[in-house]
């Protein structure tokens, strides 16, 4: 099934060719965007470790995995395969199977149907809004994965929350991988109009333990005073490759809160770019990486303070076991105009074995003088005195270690505003460490 492509150029050509042959074009309004993305892919190559942004993450194994884009399966996944991922807190759910919209698995209860849907459905009523925003936030030049996703853009989860509208129930976007040796290109597109409010759960799951590639892009645009909570869970198969880009743009006094959790995949990479484009906007960005075995999980974030009086808080935690490798690169950019910026960043890392590895790099680029920027990074192991304290109360060494690992992750997990999801993650963390 998988043809081998020897180098980066062959690999990208292979992907482009395999796609255009099959895509019958229904969304002609977007064809320009795609054409531009294809041109961009043609000028790029896969990144390698000589690229500053990819210093710690060797993505070259991809050239050996020329997985064709997934085809929509006629035999779709059964609802009861997915029930484990449904959240009792919400009935708003869009399901995408290997990147393709599965209408029969999706439900929208809390909000009028015009607010939430997949791309073709939403184009019927909101074409002009979509065309003037889609693809405008996620950069494609200099980002080959984002360009590839855009080149293959045919469907997408679309949420447009109208002015002064509060969607109370969270919206779950469930991206399920079922096929092996394919690549899929999920995409989310969110517009929160003025004074609107939304909680979004972007959940990447799999019902196969096979190898596949997910290349995803999310674009989130907040108008003035909008509030968006964005929970992102990456629990792909342990053999998967997950490449993700998310671009967020904040207008005046808007607030973006995100918690992203990275558990799955052999190699995963999450790029998050947040632009505080107008005054008094605020973001809180939290991350948790929990990996073991030979997993590699790389989180690159960039918080761009463009205007004065904006606030950003970031806390990222990595828990790394066995020979896994976590990477965190957190860039905070404070532009000359962005006076009175208030920014904090903390990177805390817990190594559970002597062979686990973490590279953490805070990157502050501050061009304004009247700013408050605090940052710190720590790398540590479980505290032997804490373990002894718990053992002295009868807990086995293993349960003591699990409890302390859980404790390390707890504050991030508790920021997730959905109880059932919190509980699922708590269980995963408590059972993470097998070989202790």
């Amino acid at each position: 099934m998988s043809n081998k492509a020897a180098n980066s150029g062959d690999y990208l050509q292979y992907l482009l060719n395999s796609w255009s042959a099959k895509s019958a074009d229904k969304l002609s309004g977007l064809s320009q965007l795609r054409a531009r993305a294809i041109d961009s892919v043609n000028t790029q190559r896969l990144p390698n470790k000589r690229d500053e942004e990819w210093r710690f993450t060797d993505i070259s194994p991809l050239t050996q995995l020329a997985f064709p884009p997934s085809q929509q399966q006629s035999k779709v996944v059964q609802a009861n395969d997915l029930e484990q991922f449904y959240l009792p807190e919400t009935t708003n759910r869009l399901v995408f199977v290997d990147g393709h919209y599965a209408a029969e698995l999706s439900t929208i209860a809390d909000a009028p149907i015009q607010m939430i849907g997949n791309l073709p459905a939403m184009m019927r009523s909101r074409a002009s809004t979509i065309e003037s925003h889609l693809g405008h936030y996620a950069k494609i030049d200099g980002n080959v994965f984002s360009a590839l996703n855009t080149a293959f853009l045919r469907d997408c989860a679309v949420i447009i929350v109208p002015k002064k509208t509060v969607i109370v129930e969270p919206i779950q976007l469930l991206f399920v991988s079922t096929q092996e040796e394919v690549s899929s290109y999920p995409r989310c597109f969110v517009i929160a109009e003025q004074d609107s409010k939304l909680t979004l759960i972007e959940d990447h799951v799999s019902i196969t333990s096979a190898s596949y590639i997910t290349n995803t892009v999310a674009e989130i645009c907040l108008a003035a005073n909008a509030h968006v909570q964005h929970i992102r869970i990456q629990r792909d198969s342990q053999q998967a490759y997950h490449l993700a880009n998310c671009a967020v743009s904040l207008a005046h006094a808007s607030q973006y809160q995100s918690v992203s959790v990275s558990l799955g995949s052999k190699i995963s990479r999450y790029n998050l770019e947040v632009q505080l484009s107008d005054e008094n906007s605020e973001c809180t960005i939290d991350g948790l990486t929990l990996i073991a075995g030979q997993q590699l999980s790389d989180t690159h974030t960039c918080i761009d303070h463009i205007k004065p009086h904006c606030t950003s808080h970031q806390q990222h935690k990595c828990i790394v076991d066995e020979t896994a490798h976590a990477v965190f690169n957190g860039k905070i950019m404070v532009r000359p105009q962005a006076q009175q910026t208030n920014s904090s960043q903390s990177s805390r890392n817990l190594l559970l074995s002597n062979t686990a590895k973490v590279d953490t790099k805070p990157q502050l680029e501050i061009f304004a003088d009247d700013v408050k920027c605090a940052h710190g990074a720590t790398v540590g192991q479980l505290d032997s005195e804490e373990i002894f304290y718990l053992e002295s109360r009868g807990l086995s060494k293993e349960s003591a270690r699990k409890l302390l690992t859980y404790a390390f992750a707890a504050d991030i997990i508790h920021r997730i505003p959905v109880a059932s999801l919190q509980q699922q993650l708590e269980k995963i963390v408590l059972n993470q460490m097998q070989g202790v």
Partner: protein
Amino acid sequence: MIDSNSITMLSIKNLHASINGTGILNGIDLTVKSGEIHAIMGLNGSGKSTLAKVLAGHSAYEVTQGTIEFEGKNLLELAPEERARAGLFLGFQYPVEIPGVANTQFLRLAYNTIQSQRGKEELDPLEFDDFVREKMKLLDMNPDFLDRSVNEGFSGGEKKRNEILQMALLEPKLSILDETDSGLDIDALKIVAKGVNQIINKDNATILVTHYQRLLDYIVPDFVHVMQAGRIVMTGGKELAMELETRGYDWIGSDQRNAKNRLTAGAHA
């Protein structure tokens, strides 16, 4: 209380222990029987906490000589959690803070672990909540401490009360309370002493490590031991604590012979 029907709970013989190759305990002999209360006093750095941690099984200390038996079993063969499950309890001089673990979750986990070991019923969160609140009343503890992280941000005295709460929940056979009185105000000291006195009975035993005779007014010891440079250099009754309070420790070193006499006269009077 000293009781003729008592059984030997703890028997330490010629115990030597070191940390990173430095000898800290240099030949401890101590026998504790059920029903007894022993106080251990001594200057800072004399090895009191080291003895307590060696008993609890802290892996940083290496026992280089000697034996410890707990109810006739070789304690040194047991892992720390096995010692706890066998009924040994250490109230820490410096209880650690564990951010992220709710106190109630920790207390219930410890309680249920020990209960199941004893073949007794475990409690679910609701049952445990009722149970622990009752115990907290005895110690005049605010139930708010259940929802906070274990010891995190607790004041010195609050941490000590939390230790005694654990003792009350786990009902150990042998409790070693390492400076549980330090940092307690007078009212708290009385409350904690009352709590400890309620737990003490003829079937369990207590070792109190303390610097202050004050505690011993409330929890009256059967024996008072003085530690110096990793040894017990003197043993007496509760009046020895009074003497230490007025005279300090200087005279012990300068009057070894006298000390030896007291040792023979005082022990198991």
